[in-house]
């Protein structure tokens, strides 16, 4: 630690007012506070300080994301070798996946942080840590076959239009990572739907197995829900899908950390599950009895295991910036996400993955939910007085 501290201290004067690299101060400041907890003291007002600043909070989310990332890497390899009917070791699966996933992660971080630094320097504000999470979320919700330039384009789009244009972290109203996915989804549908979920780089000497189908469980679900993999398979995540979202188990590990540290709101996660379960049960009741494999017959708990529901509920819906801010509002917000997810999955064959759009839609509704909750509160309080 000592040599790094001295290095930072010797470089510091150049970046301060009047120094040679004064313009680059935000970039320097970002690096310094990333390495060391800043030693600022408050001058007036409230003097309560907590070690849990924004950087530490964001870092907790990154740690919570690692199970899904590691599992995703393994699963990319597993799906690949599975498609060619090859039995390979755990390490081989993992290495193949890492080779495919790491470039996407690197591009997402490099491009997004680049944009972030440019904006910070031009507008003279500090580089915020929000992108550390966004940059990790983007690769995890994309198919592994996505071209790298699209990852870069989406990172630019979501950083500029989703965040920086509103003034940076904490000032936006939509989850930037979801915006990136929605952007790619509507702009390049051919790369985001269909046969894109498994990396099919040819393996010399092996042909695709006969029973291979690259469809995700959600596509199977729309035509005949009984074709879906078993609930356990979906829970562990041994299925095709976006890189990091297949395993409900890995998301649960992350959820434990987020809830334990208080970084993610447990109310939102629980409310999402309740909403989806409730709507799923309602669908079961309303389902046409004469079509036995209609999507409406899907058991309600399947909706919690299918596709990216767990990932969305744990990492996306709990984004403290774009979610509802009031405590009662969080319940409403979460329940509506669950309800809309099931509605979109069942009734909208064009978009089998309802979670992303349901959360984006609720990001739009969140300010109104908060407003109604606050107004209601004022009304009841003034009645009591």
């Amino acid at each position, binding site marked *: 630690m000592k040599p790094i501290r001295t290095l930072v201290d010797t470089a510091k004067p150049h970046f301060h007012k009047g120094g040679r690299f004064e313009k680059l101060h935000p970039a320097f400041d970002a690096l310094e506070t990333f390495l060391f907890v800043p030693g600022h003291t408050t001058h007036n007002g409230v003097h309560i300080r907590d070690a849990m600043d924004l950087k530490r909070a964001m870092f907790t989310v990154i740690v919570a994301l690692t199970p899904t990332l590691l599992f995703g890497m393994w699963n990319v390899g597993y799906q690949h070798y599975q498609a060619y009917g090859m039995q390979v070791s755990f390490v081989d699966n993992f290495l193949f996946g890492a080779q495919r996933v790491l470039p996407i992660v690197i591009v997402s971080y490099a491009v997004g942080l680049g944009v972030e630094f440019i904006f910070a320097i031009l*507008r003279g504000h500090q580089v915020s840590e929000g992108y550390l999470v966004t940059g990790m979320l983007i690769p995890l919700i994309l198919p592994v076959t996505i071209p790298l330039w699209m990852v870069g384009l989406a990172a630019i789009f979501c950083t500029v239009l989703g965040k920086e244009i*509103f003034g940076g972290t904490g000032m936006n109203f*939509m989850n930037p990572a979801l915006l990136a996915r929605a952007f790619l989804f*509507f702009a390049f549908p051919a790369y985001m739907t269909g046969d894109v979920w498994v990396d099919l780089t040819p393996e010399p000497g092996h042909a695709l197995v006969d029973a291979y189908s690259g469809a995700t469980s959600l596509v199977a679900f729309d035509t005949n829900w009984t074709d879906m993999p078993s609930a356990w398979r979906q829970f562990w995540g041994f299925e095709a899908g976006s890189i990091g979202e297949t395993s409900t188990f890995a998301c649960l590990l992350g959820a434990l950390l987020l809830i334990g540290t208080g970084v993610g709101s447990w109310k939102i996660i629980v409310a999402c599950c309740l909403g989806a379960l409730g709507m799923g049960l309602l669908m079961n009741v309303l389902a046409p009895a004469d079509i036995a494999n209609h999507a409406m017959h899907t058991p309600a708990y399947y909706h919690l295991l299918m596709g990216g529901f767990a990932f969305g509920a744990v990492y996306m819906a709990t984004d403290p910036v774009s979610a509802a801010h009031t405590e009662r509002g969080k319940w409403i917000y979460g329940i509506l996400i669950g309800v809309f997810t099931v509605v979109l999955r069942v009734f909208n064959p064009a978009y089998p993955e309802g979670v992303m759009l349901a959360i984006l*839609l609720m990001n739009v509704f969140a300010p109104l939910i908060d407003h109604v909750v606050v107004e209601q509160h004022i009304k009841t309080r003034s009645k009591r007085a």
Partner: protein
Amino acid sequence: MYELINIFIRAIFIENVIFAFFLGMCSFLAVSKKIKTAFGLGLAVIFVMVLTTPLNYLILNYMLGEGALAWIHPSLASVDLTFLAFILFISTIAGAVQLVEMSVEKFVPALYASLGIFLPLITVNCSILGTSLFMQERQYTFAETAVFSLGAGVGFFLAIVLLAAIRERLRYSNVPQPLQGLGIAMIITALMGLAFLSFSGIKL
């Protein structure tokens, strides 16, 4: 009955006048700074839509359409006055808006003051004329027209209140100078439209 519910839901979410057709953008962007005024304008638009679209339906079907005048005299059965649709639709809307304006001024003077020029401007709000024209183009029945106009009105109301809520939340955000006000409102509208795209393709 099922068909009517279908039309209502479609008009609110799937074919929202703002996010699917970009109609009525002027008042949508201009009167969405505060939830209270947006709420008032939204209600006024619902009222005018529900009043004028069925009225225009009657005008179209008993005065303007081909053979619509046959109820007066059989010899008029060959008359087609459809080319007058625009001007008569607009006149009905103007009349209804006049009604709204007078009652708002009388009963809610505060809202009247804060809406300002945008209350009379509902007359030329394209979402209202658009709703009447959709009614004509899609050949709805009277019941369908009534439900559709209510749905379209609620769709506009929902859109403008949502935008106002977002803009109230973003009051403390640090938007670059050239984009403040209208610029950022348009970007927000586009992002909201992206979220509303989730409904496109729903088959009811």
